[in-house]
């Protein structure tokens, strides 16, 4: 091992070989268990409508789907570096579930059957609406996956102690290809099981680390915070909001924008919505949201302790200088308290998290594209299964490579921030349409298309012309400046715009959608009468 690397490495003089062996061993074990669990007994097909999962199981899987690398690595890092401002991600991610519980989950389960497009096209002209649903699903998925890929790259770069930009790009590419390969080869069967297994592992490890940290400081959180402030250049400034977003009026507005995207985005995430179809009926869908909410509350409270704990024990400077930057706070903390073994364990859990989320996302997007777009729009519902499967596979590959490319471009950014962008896209493209179609009788096909394309388009355009893409030091293209939109998260503008587009689009056409269909939807969404595969 060369001495220079040894000096720089935040992991002391541990050989990367040990890190990687513990890490790889655990990943393989997880996949093996998931594979065994899924191949014995009933077929646990992810998309089997009227699925066989109970509310509790699905709740665990839901939290597994939702607690991505962003929640774990991203938030812990954001808190360790920026203090209180990082905690706001946790709160937004959690409160958002009330939208699902109160407005979406049960109605969606009762009305649709397979994809988000089922519900959106229920009382509209099927083909254009399904096409729009597939397009927005693709964009949300890719944006979400970019963050996951970047997280996976950071993690492996930390374990291998790779610092050069090219080296990290290579790591992201290799890790990404492995993930796409896994999805293509037959990870389908085990995805839900990986999801549950990983959720349990993640919750167990964060709870244990939290207990350990609190115990170390005599169960006095205030003392832990004190030590964190000593090791953070912000000092006690990290206890209050404003460290990251408090600079001026614009950054404050950006913060409000991000918060809106977080709370309104969850109900528009296709891979989360899809989970409501894996339970037998709307009551189980409700139960699964409740389970997920409790589990996530526990998790996000732990991230608060872990974030401050990482600042206290590892120190903000070390975190910022590590390969992977902010995103490496949690693994570094694990190394600090449990050495190589715990580092391997935590990294493996984080990696399994990313793998499971990527698999779920790829599955959702490719299924939606093949089913909604290819089979129903291009082939008018007459596609043969073989070609549909082929289209799904090709879609999975295209999405995978787009995400890898994106992951390389955004390398170094906090992944919770990146996921915030995916949430903004989801909220802008899907939420308004979903709410209107469920609750507004006059809403019609034209309104649906305006809301989806208008919301999606304005969100993507604003992002393109924001500091995320150009004009500042940590932009994707730092050397050029074509930015004129000052907020790094467009949610505050693009979400209201999508609602506005929906209203305008609706009144452009004189007629509302078929009122009989609205009656059907009203009855069905509330009671499940007439819904296929609803089992009580």
């Amino acid at each position, binding site marked *: 091992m060369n001495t220079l690397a040894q000096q720089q490495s935040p992991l002391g003089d541990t050989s990367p070989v040990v890190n990687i062996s513990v890490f790889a061993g655990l990943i393989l074990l997880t996949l093996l268990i998931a594979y065994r669990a899924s191949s014995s007994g009933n077929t646990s097909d992810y998309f089997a409508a009227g699925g066989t999962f109970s509310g509790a199981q699905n709740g665990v899987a839901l939290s597994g789907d939702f607690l991505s690398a962003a929640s774990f690595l991203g938030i812990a890092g954001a808190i360790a570096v920026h203090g209180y401002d990082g905690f706001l991600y946790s709160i937004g991610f959690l409160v958002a579930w009330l939208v699902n519980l109160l407005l979406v989950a049960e109605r969606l389960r009762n009305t649709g059957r397979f994809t988000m497009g089922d519900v959106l096209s229920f009382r509209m002209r099927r083909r254009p609406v399904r096409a729009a649903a597939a397009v927005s699903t693709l964009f949300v998925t890719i944006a979400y996956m970019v963050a996951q890929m970047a997280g996976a790259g950071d993690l492996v770069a930390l374990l291998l102690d790779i610092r050069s930009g090219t080296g990290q790009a290579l790591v992201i590419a290799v890790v990404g290809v492995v993930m796409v390969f896994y999805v293509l080869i037959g990870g389908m069967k085990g995805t839900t099981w990986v999801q549950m297994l990983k959720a349990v592992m993640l919750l167990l490890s964060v709870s244990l680390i939290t207990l350990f940290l609190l115990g170390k400081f005599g169960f006095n*959180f205030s003392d832990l915070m004190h030590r964190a402030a000593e090791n953070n250049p912000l000092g006690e400034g990290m206890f209050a909001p404003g460290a990251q977003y408090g600079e001026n009026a614009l950054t404050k507005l950006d913060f409000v924008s991000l918060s809106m995207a977080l709370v309104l985005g969850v109900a528009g995430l296709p891979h989360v919505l899809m989970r409501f179809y894996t339970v037998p009926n709307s009551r189980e869908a409700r139960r699964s949201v409740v389970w997920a909410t409790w589990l996530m509350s526990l998790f996000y409270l732990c991230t608060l302790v872990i974030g401050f704990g990482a600042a206290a024990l590892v120190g903000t400077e070390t975190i910022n200088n590590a390969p992977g930057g902010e995103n490496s706070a949690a693994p570094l903390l694990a190394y600090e308290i449990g050495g190589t073994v715990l580092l391997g364990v935590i990294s493996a859990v984080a990696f399994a998290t990313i793998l499971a989320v990527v698999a779920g996302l790829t599955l959702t997007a490719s299924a939606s594209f093949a089913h909604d777009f290819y089979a129903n729009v291009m082939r008018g519902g007459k596609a043969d299964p073989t070609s549909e499967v082929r289209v799904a596979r090709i879609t999975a590959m295209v999405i995978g490579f787009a995400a890898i490319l994106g992951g390389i471009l955004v390398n170094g950014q906090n992944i919770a921030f990146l996921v915030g962008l995916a949430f903004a896209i989801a909220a802008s493209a899907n939420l308004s349409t979903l709410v209107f179609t469920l609750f507004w009788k006059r809403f019609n096909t034209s309104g649906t298309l305006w809301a989806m394309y208008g919301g999606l388009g304005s969100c993507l355009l604003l992002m393109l012309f924001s500091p995320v893409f150009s004009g500042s030091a940590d932009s994707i293209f730092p050397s050029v400046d074509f930015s004129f939109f000052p907020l790094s998260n467009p949610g505050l503008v693009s979400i209201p715009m999508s609602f506005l587009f929906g209203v305008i689009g609706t009144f452009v056409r004189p007629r509302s959608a078929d009122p009989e269909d609205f009656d059907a939807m009203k009855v069905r969404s509330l009671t499940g009468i007439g819904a296929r595969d609803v089992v009580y």
Partner: protein
Amino acid sequence: MSNTTPPPLRARYGERSEKTHASFGGIEKSAALGAKTGPDFAGIAGSAEFDELRARLKRFVLPMTVLFLALYLGYVLLAAYAPEFMAEPVLGNINVGLLFGVGQFVSTLLITTLYVKFAERRVDPEVDKLRETAGGGQR
């Protein structure tokens, strides 16, 4: 009571897709929706029971949605525009902002619990009755 007699539901509840062909993520072509056939939706939608159920649900869901969004927005605005207030220490290093943040957890879990209680007591039994009237779905 609904003034139209609902037609009997077809045996569509027993209809489960058999998947024997190759599938990727469970994609199959039988997922088309059949909204035009089936139960008498207009009849149910026009019935007094259904109206009452919808109104009852709305009376709970609407205020709760407004409440949690207002709480969240209020919290976000305080964090953005009143950081000094949020930094006010309460107990050691634990300040107002931290307590409010944890308060969002508490209010989320509280609203979740309230909704579940409400739905199980006031909504589910009514839905069961409606389903029975519609003549199907109870397996």
